[in-house]
């Protein structure tokens, strides 16, 4: 090797690559900020920025201040929390399984939380308090992840994914059973609408319930970065580099159980955000799993907030459910992903 070839790649070029990830993160954060502002303005009643500021600051009780502080602010905050959770957990699980089709529900958390919530609706417990459904959702999420862990323990990533698939199938079957045995059309309808996922009518109580768990869960997921990077080389090499695979699985399981479990318990199952967000940012973050985590969380928040604003603006009779909209937008992306995979795979 000559000195000449050492010079050819300038340190300047190196810097640029690092900066590109930071620029990506900053750009998505800016978009998120702008969307958040729009989210406060938009809805059946459009508010002006002046009314927003007034509503946030003044102590006078008026309609605009109520709309902002009791409806749109909690709804927007929840959208950011849940969207970020889905984006982050999707990125972690795709990195963990090295499978581009992995999504937050992979390990059974989403179907577990859904089943828990459905039980609460089925027995009419939601009349007691608005917190009952999320509580049951959390029980379901933790139950599902415990089952996945017990089934897939010690068998490597493949065993874990298969255990998650089994738990998912079981959860779906139980939900179908609940619908099958639903005491009346009303109960069945309530279950169906809850399963579609929505941010409508969510209050600060929901955020107080889910927020701490979401933050703690995302905190655990953030610690998987180095391990996911090493896993790019396969499990043998990652282990030889001092990464403990069982610990990494534990972090991913506990993190998704807390964050995705809490998010799903409050909003219902929202598909595709967790699948799409990592793919959107991956090419801009040099494909390295650890560098995708933060941008993917922000992109998830942007997508969910945008989808939620869209549900408020599209007026076709009853408000469109969030989960339906994300699935409708997500499916074409899924097709594109399959076509691209077909083209790039050897």
């Amino acid at each position, binding site marked *: 090797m000559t000195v000449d070839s050492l010079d*050819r790649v300038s340190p300047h070029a190196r810097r640029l690559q690092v900066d590109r990830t930071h620029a990506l993160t900053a750009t998505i954060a800016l978009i998120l900020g702008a969307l958040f502002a729009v989210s406060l303005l938009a809805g059946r009643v459009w508010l002006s920025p002046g009314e927003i500021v007034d509503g946030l600051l003044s102590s006078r009780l008026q309609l605009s201040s109520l709309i902002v502080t009791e409806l749109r602010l909690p709804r927007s905050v929840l959208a950011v929390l849940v969207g970020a959770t889905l984006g982050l957990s999707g990125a972690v699980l795709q990195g963990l399984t090295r499978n581009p089709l992995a999504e937050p529900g992979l390990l059974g958390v989403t179907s577990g939380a859904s089943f828990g919530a459905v039980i609460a609706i089925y027995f009419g417990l939601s009349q007691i308090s608005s917190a009952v459904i999320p509580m049951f959702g959390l029980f379901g999420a933790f139950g599902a992840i415990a089952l996945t862990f017990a089934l897939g323990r010690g068998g490597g990533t493949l065993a874990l994914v298969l255990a998650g698939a089994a738990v998912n199938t079981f959860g779906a079957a139980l939900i179908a059973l609940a619908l099958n045995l639903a005491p009346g059309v009303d109960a069945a309808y309530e279950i169906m609408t809850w399963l579609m996922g929505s941010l409508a009518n969510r209050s600060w109580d929901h955020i107080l319930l889910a927020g701490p768990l979401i933050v703690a869960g995302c905190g655990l997921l953030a610690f998987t*970065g180095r391990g996911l990077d090493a896993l*790019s080389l396969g499990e043998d090499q990652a282990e030889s580099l*001092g990464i403990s695979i069982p610990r990494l699985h534990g972090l991913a399981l506990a993190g998704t159980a807390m964050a995705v479990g809490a998010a799903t318990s409050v909003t219902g199952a929202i598909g595709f955000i967790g699948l799409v967000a990592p793919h959107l940012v991956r090419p801009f973050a040099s494909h*390295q799993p650890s560098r995708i985590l933060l941008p993917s969380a922000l992109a998830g928040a942007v997508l969910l907030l945008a989808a939620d604003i869209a549900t408020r603006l599209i007026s076709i009779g009853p408000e469109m459910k969030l989960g339906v909209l994300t699935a409708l937008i997500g499916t074409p992306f899924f097709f594109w992903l399959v076509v691209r995979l077909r083209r790039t795979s050897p």
Partner: protein
Amino acid sequence: MTQIAAGHISISKGGREILRDVSMSGAGGEFIAIIGPNGAGKSTLLASLAGLLKPDTGTVAIDGRALSAWNGRELARKRAYLPQNPRCEWPISVERLVALGLTPVLPVFGGFPGALRLRIDEVLAACDLLALRDQPATTLSGGELARAMLARTLVGDPDVLIFDEPLEGLDPRHTLATAERLSELARGGKLVIASMHDLTLAARHAGRIVALDRGRVAADGTPGQVLTSELIRAVFAVDARISTAGGGAFVDFLAPVAGGREQQR
């Protein structure tokens, strides 16, 4: 000087005994080639030497300390391990792939300290990879990927290097270059342990050869001591002519032994 010692290790997988009472040792400066037919237990032996596979009985120790007493990161700084046909699952750049070798010295969060960047440049230069540093690892040819993986193991400057068939799938030129690189590392004081199928290359480059046969050490010594036509006939079930003209040992396989190993099993 680094020492590695495996004492009476036995490993069973799925009810089948893969290694039976294997003992071997090595020290810094040695290049040890592990030879043996398919299924002799070479990969299992290397994985247990690297500490990735816990023996059912017996112990492996580096510098007199049992591997079970090392913590993962500590051990990762001491020895590097490369499995058979290593692959990269994401299209990360060669530079980032090589940098993964520094995982055991990096903090949990944050980027790369400047000193480590220089180390990566050094290794990229040494392994002839500077021109490929920004290329996605998934687009490399077999020989280029093997070089990148080798650089990945070297970047952390470990004392013990364990490779499972590092010459597999390489063309003659890259085979020679890699074998030469491994013996150069040993001359530089590293302990290199690699499994190989090419006996002539093993004889030429390795200072010591350990022959495995059905989970047991059949021979352990210098190439001259180990590579005899009797041993090759017993271990590989192949008749071979060995010519020692001009220093090395040239192993020429002639014909499979009539009756084969299948009956022996």
